[in-house]
């Protein structure tokens, strides 16, 4: 499928398409709004004061740049490639989600919107959204699947402390997909004052592009940091994929560096063969959902299937459209890791590095553990450690059969 291109970085086209993927598949009521978001974003990009304000909040509020860390114990443990972590879990609120939220909240302010809505899976995007809403004094409603509320309780309470109205969605699988449906319904009903702050590089154009741009700070920083550390580009970049925002943010600045191998790790749940997974590219087909065309988990008749992952942040039956395109182009390799593999990596990282990672990047780490031993010592791998694991301790305890109220 790969064609000879000068660049992989010039997408999307004017209508928001990355080849076959992307676009704006929304109800007419929303169409004028997303066109307005697009115009406002273009105007903001042309205004140097916007970039300056965002950079200032990234630095002083989110704590950027996030460090590049040489993970020496894991490197020794795997006995092959040199492993680095991009430490986005050290950001304010504990994940990469804040990068996107700061960019979008500044946009919403410029647009004069007073009410912010968001969907969340793991609650990391919900927390980041509630955080920026508190900081900028905007009303905040977060839709979250009832199942996710149950397994990410610490984040639910954080959102409430920050002043957000967390609304449980108990339809269907009661996870991220339903939360997004409900957020879209809210937006249709509150078009005048409301801005929808989408949390991943998916949804209708311009969201996939906008979110990518805000998250690209990850890859841009990495270029300079790796140059300082090793005097050259990395060899392999690895990131986990829910909707794909941390991954595209890491990858995008390197898309045209042909020698840099890019690997996206989807959640294989109980195994791709089991049918209970969240790996849209490895186990799905192209379709249309939530405003864009992309790879989706679906039945033959085009009904969307429920995803399954131990990680609420990856438990989504789709993936951002640019990833679908990069997959078809053969530029990024999409692989997967199971619940069990992620759990093992979670514990390994905690014990060897003294870093409790979120379950999402634990999927990426598990794949790093598969390839590192086979690679030479001068091969540089960077994994995006895009979230910290505090939110996951209940889920992990449960999976390990440990009663949190009892003897730990």
């Amino acid at each position, binding site marked *: 499928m790969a064609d000879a291109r000068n660049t992989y970085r010039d997408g999307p086209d004017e*209508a928001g398409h990355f080849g076959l993927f992307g*676009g*704006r*598949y*929304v*109800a*007419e*009521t*929303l*169409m*004028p*709004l997303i*066109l307005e978001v697009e115009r406002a974003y273009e105007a903001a990009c042309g205004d140097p004061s916007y970039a300056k304000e965002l950079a200032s909040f990234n630095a002083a509020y989110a704590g950027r740049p996030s460090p590049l860390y040489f993970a020496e114990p894991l490197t020794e443990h795997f006995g092959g490639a040199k492993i680095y972590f991009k430490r986005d879990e050290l950001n304010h609120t504990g994940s990469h989600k804040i990068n996107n939220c700061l960019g979008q909240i500044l946009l919403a302010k410029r647009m004069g919107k007073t009410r912010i809505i968001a969907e969340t899976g793991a609650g990391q995007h919900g927390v980041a959204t509630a955080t920026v809403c508190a900081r900028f004094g905007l009303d905040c409603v977060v839709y979250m699947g009832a199942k996710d509320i149950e397994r990410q309780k610490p984040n639910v309470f954080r959102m409430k402390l920050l002043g957000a109205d967390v609304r449980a969605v108990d*339809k*269907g699988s009661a996870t991220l*997909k339903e939360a997004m*449906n409900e957020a*879209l*319904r809210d937006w*249709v*009903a*509150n*078009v*005048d004052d409301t801005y929808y702050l989408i949390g991943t590089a998916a949804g209708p154009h311009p969201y996939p592009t906008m979110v990518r741009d805000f998250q690209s700070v990850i890859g841009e920083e990495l270029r300079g940091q790796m140059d300082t550390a090793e005097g050259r580009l990395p060899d392999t970049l690895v990131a986990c994929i829910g909707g794909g925002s941390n991954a595209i943010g890491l990858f995008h600045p390197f898309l045209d560096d042909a020698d840099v191998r890019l690997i996206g790790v989807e959640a294989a749940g109980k195994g791709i063969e089991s049918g209970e997974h969240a790996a849209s590219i490895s186990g799905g*087909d*192209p*379709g*249309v*959902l*939530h*405003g864009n*065309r992309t790879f*989706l988990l*679906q039945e*033959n*008749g*085009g*009904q*969307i299937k429920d995803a399954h992952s131990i990680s609420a942040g990856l438990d989504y039956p789709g993936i951002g459209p640019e990833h679908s395109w990069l997959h078809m182009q053969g530029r990024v390799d999409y692989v997967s890791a199971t619940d069990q593999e992620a759990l093992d990596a979670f514990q390994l990282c905690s014990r060897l590095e003294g870093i409790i990672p979120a379950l999402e990047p634990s999927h990426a780490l598990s794949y790093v553990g598969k390839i590192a031993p086979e690679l030479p010592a001068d091969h540089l791998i960077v994994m995006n450690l895009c979230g910290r694991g505090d939110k996951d301790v209940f889920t992990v305890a449960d999976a390990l059969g440990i009663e949190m109220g009892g003897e730990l």
Partner: protein
Amino acid sequence: MSASVTESRLTRLFEKLKEQDRAALVTFITANDPNPELFRQLLEGMPTAGADIIELGMPFSDPMADGPSIQLSSQRALKAGVTIDDVLGAVKRMRELEMDTPIILMGYYNPIYRYGPAEFAQAAANAGVDGVIIVDLPPEEAEELNQNLREHNLHMIFLAAPTTDITRLPRVLDHASGFVYYVAVKGVTGTKSADMTEVGARIAEMREQTDLPLGVGFGIRTAAQAAEVARFADAVVVGSAIVDIIADGIDDDYRPEAGLSARVLGFVKDLSDGVRTARSVDGAEA
């Protein structure tokens, strides 16, 4: 753009009703809700009860533009495994009894995309469908399906919304065929009531820009509201209010109570009486 559909069951109906100086009643039900048997009774009974156009919901797992009523009706139908072929099969059987009443399908794009836009257009035409409304296909993304529909003389009906401002409206009207469906509320189906003065003003504004019939739907729940809209619109769409009667009349296993189909069709009759008398002198009493 290639030639649009010029003559069809739908255009003939609107011409006839124009002569009669009345609006069309469009009734929405979800295919196979609550089960294939009751659905069939409702479908077959609709024309006699007074539906001028029948709109059938093609269930989708993620109906993002629908409120709770139609979400639940889709779930009921999906639980029994309804497919596009089932919907088209029901239309085909209906066409053995009834050739005049236009039938339009309403749904979301993914099931059709999976079916194949060309294959879908062909199968829908064969079954006797007259047009389709795809909620998540704005004009910007519609051409892939619409060119196939046109080849089979099927209308693609587009929505215009309260947010569709005067600069965007021509874009919708350019693609529209059959009639233009004005979404009367800012919101999903079945949750708000339409503000008639506002809707009337928007319809008047749109009349200046198109000769196509103008339908109004979303937020019309009673015969009185239907009559009010029928005074200025060419078609009145009622959906959630009908679907709610079905939901109220079934048990946990979706078994209908006795007389449910008569009750639904009785409501359609009331709506129809309202629409038919709306423009006569004492129409307000309807």
